[in-house]
């Protein structure tokens, strides 16, 4: 499947509010990138703040407290395609459990894959294909409950092989360390599946720690895993992954996650948490203010003491 619209090398800088308003429709099929690291939390909060609903989500590894579960708990999600959704070190995700065990706040349809097969779904779409073969999933219960996975006899070897369908999100949000105004985005450290996701989605919103001049991008062309032609919006969002870390920029805020985990224990306290942290602020700047800039700077120092890109410290 080919792209329906064409992205030119022009200035794409806008606010997150504008990007979400412009690209996300009710009923959209969304994906939020990152792999723990570089979670586009600011974007997720803004989608929630604008009350976009009846969403379908597709993710590879979603670390709940800063990711897809926020939208699930708010009742904005109808369908969820996923390999892994959990709290990581923060433990059990009560919002997710309520949704799947008790259909609170509503029933969501779930379609499960593994990490590699999800990666293959984005890789297939990144190249305009409709499927990709994979040697995972075989013999497991995953394809029994997900009829979009097809187990076939490999036409070359005769052995069983699984096929997974391409995932073409309507909009992808990807948080990166640096991007120029036309959308050439560079990721340092963990890439996740974002190289493929940026190509798979019809519209791509990059949130970035730093907007750099194009000449800075040109110094390291091999780092630009997302060229401008994939990108529709460039949004400057420092600390846009707060809670999670952003390699070479700031460390995870583990105690924050612990607080959130606690707040999510019941649907009522989850809602209060959302009222306070999402709806109670105007935008991500308001959120940062509320978290405290001093705290954010300490997280940045903790990261940069160990890691500086291009240096061995």
């Amino acid at each position, binding site marked *: 499947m080919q792209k329906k619209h064409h992205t030119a090398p022009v200035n794409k800088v806008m606010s997150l509010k504008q990007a979400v308003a412009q690209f996300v429709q009710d009923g959209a099929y969304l994906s939020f990138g990152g*792999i*723990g*690291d570089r979670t586009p939390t600011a974007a997720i909060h803004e989608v929630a703040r604008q009350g976009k609903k009846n969403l379908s989500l597709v993710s590879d*590894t979603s*670390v709940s407290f800063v990711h897809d579960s926020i939208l699930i708990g708010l009742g904005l999600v109808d369908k969820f395609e*996923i*390999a*892994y*959704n*959990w709290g*990581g*070190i923060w433990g059990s995700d009560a919002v997710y*459990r309520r949704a*799947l*065990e008790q*259909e609170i706040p509503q029933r969501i*349809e779930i379609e499960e894959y*593994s*990490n*590699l*097969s999800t*990666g293959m779904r*984005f890789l297939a779409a990144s190249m305009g294909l409709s499927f990709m073969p994979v*040697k*995972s*999933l*075989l*013999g*497991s*219960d*995953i394809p029994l*409950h997900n009829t979009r996975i097809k187990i076939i006899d490999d036409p070359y070897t005769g*052995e069983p*092989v699984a096929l997974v369908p391409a995932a073409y999100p309507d909009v992808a949000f990807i948080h990166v360390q640096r991007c120029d105004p036309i959308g050439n985005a560079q990721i*340092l*450290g*963990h*890439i996740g*599946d*974002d*190289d493929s996701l940026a190509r798979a989605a019809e519209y791509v919103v990059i949130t970035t720690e730093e907007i750099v001049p194009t000449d800075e991008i040109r110094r390291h062309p091999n780092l630009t*895993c997302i060229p401008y032609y994939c990108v529709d919006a460039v949004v400057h969002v420092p600390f846009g992954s707060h809670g999670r*870390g*952003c390699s*070479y*920029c700031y*460390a*995870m*805020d*583990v*105690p*924050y996650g*612990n*607080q959130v985990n*606690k707040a999510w224990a019941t649907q009522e306290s989850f809602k209060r948490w959302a009222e306070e942290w999402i709806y109670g602020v105007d935008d991500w700047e308001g959120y940062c203010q509320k978290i405290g800039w001093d705290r954010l700077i300490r997280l940045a120092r*903790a*990261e940069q003491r*160990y*890691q500086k890109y291009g240096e*061995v410290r």
Partner: protein
Amino acid sequence: MMTSNEYVSDYTLMELMAATMAREFRDTETAFVGIGPPLIAAMVAKFTHGPNMTIAVEGGAIGSAPRRLLTCIADSTIDEKAYSCLPMWRLFGDQQRGFFNVGLIGAAQIDKFGNLNTTAIGGYPRAKVRVAGSGGGNDIGSSVGRLLVMMRQERRRFIERVDYLTTPGFLSGGDSRQKAGLLGGGPAAVITDMGVFRFEPDSKEMYLASCHPGLEPEQVKANVSWDLKIHPDCTVTERPTREQVEIMRILDPYGLYLGNGRAQMADPEKGFDFYMKVLENSYDMMEQLYKQKS
């Protein structure tokens, strides 16, 4: 002090599990491990008998040398001094190609052919208890050379057939795994807080290979819900060495993985300061560890 191979007796059960698991890794291997106790076990192996072992982590980093405590598979510090940071699909593709000798994961349930459940307990899709889903588990179980499993021993977790087969072990035993088209070698060992389990070469059924010190095979068997086979040579699990325990305490001085350190971090007042202290202190301690061991 750090070179002592003598056994110790002042260890916790988690430390025993991690030390036992560490022995499953071999030098020069490439290991695909999850975070928490599995990573601690792999790092203990690297700092003892496996100096040429390489650790790869699902987030995409290979051969890193982090000097800060890792809090998840994609904690930024796992990039630190990495040989390579690959896209996740590429790393998992490398595993499918057979570059990773050994992989280590956990599970909520296991059955007698080593199949794992990390998805749902009691029904699907509407589960009685929902857990995280496959993540990389299914991929690692499908393709890695040897699969290692680390989990808690409970009768309701060790069952005849998992409620949901997330990660293939030996499926229904015998050659069923191979017939399904799976490439990897399947489970090699399961390590719990009670013992070590391995698999019969032909039937592929799990058996008890050793009991942890102080336990009898029958006690372990009581915590397994099928008629568990006990190997005629079932031994007592080797205790941790002083060196192993010391390394673990440097890697996890606040018991975040192997103890109760996470509770301190959750304190709304002092949690953040404590966390900052943990991060900052780990630098010097781990730097020292690298220096001693290289």
